């Protein structure tokens, strides 16, 4: 980080000629300088104001490092250390700070200042690069003069197949403003290469995915969750099955960062939804080294592997949010990772009673992965608002609904046995167990989330992957600033 000399002792003022209040107080600064030592840092014109000792701060180094937000700012300094500051023109405050009585008798009592050039929105990003790029430890990759930035990212293998936003220092520093964490803090060890991934590396990949800085805490939480032993992104990446981490965001942050939980919730069109899921996958690719055809051995893969992230419609839901059902405190900002395949539609436009709708859900859920395979996979059931209304009006709780689904999804062993129905696929069944009832899902294996909209008597189901400690378990992770 660029060092700046300490402030001179005495009084220090920051001003710019372009500010009417600074022009108003120019005579006051001359008045003060006759009594006490005064140094004026001028942001836009080293000759302003006339008649006092000015320092050229047109590079804005002092203004940036002293955190000047508006001009004029008057500061009292003792032995290089700031004691107190006053923003704008306030006669009483200026008199108290300077110890000089009867300042600017012809001036009004009070005038607000103008914005400091060091916080000008048009210059802030450039100044951040100039003064704070020492925070960045990543290797700088220089581009050839004629090289296109986006093509350069493709050429270096950094893309998931779509163009990425080139991760310039300016963009990455802006991204890091989205978190309070240090850029060098290790977020997780990312498989398959088992590499320590810092906040800075997450930020670089979040830039590439198209995130805004305020999304970064969600991406960091998603990386933490994905790399936990419970979620096991290694297995999810390496498997031949078509599964990916599916991200569900809960809590006030959904609205704060403008996520979609309504119309086309699982589709395109919302920047936060699209870029957060993509950022996680880019971290797995670029930091972890998980690339298709290498450790990623998916036979088919799925569009969800570009990234699938959405928000729950908590406000319109008859039930507590998914995160709360999984043990998070109400109101907490969380991201839940579910290891799942791409969504499939459930159409039922005629059921108006919970029992009928439950039977529709169960009939569809039974087919997940294969109608004769059981207990191997969880499911994430996204219930649309018009289906949720049926349960709300009947007063059904979340646990009533999942309980009834579990009951309906107990299947006679005779239907599941290998060879039954003329289908070789199925479960090994001990002789005499044909009459037994086998559950499709483990207890707790049906996860409900409320989203989608506005019209449509539809829901959507996402089949899971190898469940339990041997495979991957849904993980709910708190989002920290």
């Amino acid at each position, binding site marked *: 980080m660029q060092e700046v000399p300490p402030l001179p002792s005495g009084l220090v003022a920051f001003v710019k000629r372009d500010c009417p209040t600074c022009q108003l107080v120019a005579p006051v600064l001359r008045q003060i300088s006759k009594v006490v030592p005064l140094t004026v840092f001028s942001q836009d014109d080293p000759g302003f104001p006339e008649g006092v000792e000015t320092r050229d701060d047109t590079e804005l180094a002092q203004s940036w490092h002293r955190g000047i937000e508006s001009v004029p700012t008057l500061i009292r300094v003792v032995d290089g250390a700031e004691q107190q500051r006053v923003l704008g023109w306030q006669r009483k405050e200026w008199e108290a700070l300077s110890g000089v009585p009867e300042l600017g008798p012809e001036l009004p009592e009070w005038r607000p200042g103008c914005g400091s050039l060091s916080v000008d929105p048009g210059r802030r990003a450039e100044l951040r690069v100039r003064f704070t790029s020492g925070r960045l430890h990543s290797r700088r990759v*220089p*581009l050839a003069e004629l090289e296109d930035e986006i093509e350069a990212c493709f050429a270096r293998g950094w893309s998931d197949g779509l163009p990425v936003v080139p991760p310039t220092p300016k963009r990455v520093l802006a991204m890091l403003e989205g978190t309070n964490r240090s850029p060098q803090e290790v977020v997780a060890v990312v498989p398959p290469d088992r590499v320590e991934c810092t906040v800075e590396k997450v930020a670089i990949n979040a830039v590439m995915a198209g995130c805004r800085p305020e999304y970064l805490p969600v991406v960091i939480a998603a990386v933490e969750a994905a790399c936990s032993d419970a979620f096991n992104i290694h297995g999810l990446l390496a498997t031949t099955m078509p599964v990916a981490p599916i991200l569900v965001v809960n809590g006030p942050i959904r609205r704060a960062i403008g996520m979609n939980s309504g119309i086309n919730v699982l589709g395109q069109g919302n920047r936060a939804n699209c870029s957060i899921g993509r950022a996680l996958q880019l971290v797995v690719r670029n930091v972890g080294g998980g690339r298709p055809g290498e450790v990623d051995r998916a036979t088919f893969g799925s569009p969800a592997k570009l990234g699938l992230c959405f928000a729950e419609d908590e406000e319109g839901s008859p039930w507590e949010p998914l995160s709360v059902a999984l043990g998070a405190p109400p109101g907490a900002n969380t991201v839940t990772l579910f290891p799942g395949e791409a969504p499939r539609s459930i159409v039922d436009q005629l059921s108006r009673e919970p029992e009928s709708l439950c039977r529709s859900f169960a009939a569809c859920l039974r087919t997940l992965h294969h109608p004769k395979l059981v207990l191997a996979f969880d499911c994430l059931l996204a219930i649309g608002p018009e289906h949720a209304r049926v349960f709300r009006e009947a007063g059904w709780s979340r646990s009533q609904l999942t309980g009834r689904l579990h009951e309906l999804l107990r299947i006679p062993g005779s239907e599941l046995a290998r060879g039954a129905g003329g289908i070789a696929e199925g479960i090994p069944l001990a002789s005499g167990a044909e009459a037994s009832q086998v559950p499709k899902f483990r207890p707790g294996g049906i996860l409900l989330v409320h989203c989608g909209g506005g019209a449509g008597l539809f829901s959507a189901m996402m089949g899971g992957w190898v469940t339990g400690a*041997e495979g991957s378990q849904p993980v709910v992770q708190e989002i920290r600033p």
Partner: protein
Amino acid sequence: MSAPRVLLDPTPEQRPARRPRQPRLSELDGRCIGLLDISKARGDVFLDRVEQLLQQRGARVLRFRKPTFTKPAPLDLRQKIAVECDAVIEALAD
């Protein structure tokens, strides 16, 4: 001339240094070969046959098994194989 444009490297900056392969075994007779079952279905069928063939050629065989095929082998299992065997064959099956 303007300053060169730079991008920040999104990778862990570990360029894959090509590692030399371990030397091959010159013969099987009297050597200890580890067979690692990754716990996929029917991996044992495959490894049973490999064991027969190795024993016919005079090798000693030790069998190992990963707890689950979805995760890397635990460190202690990898170390056990490295200590006890001259070579290892990992079986993928389905």
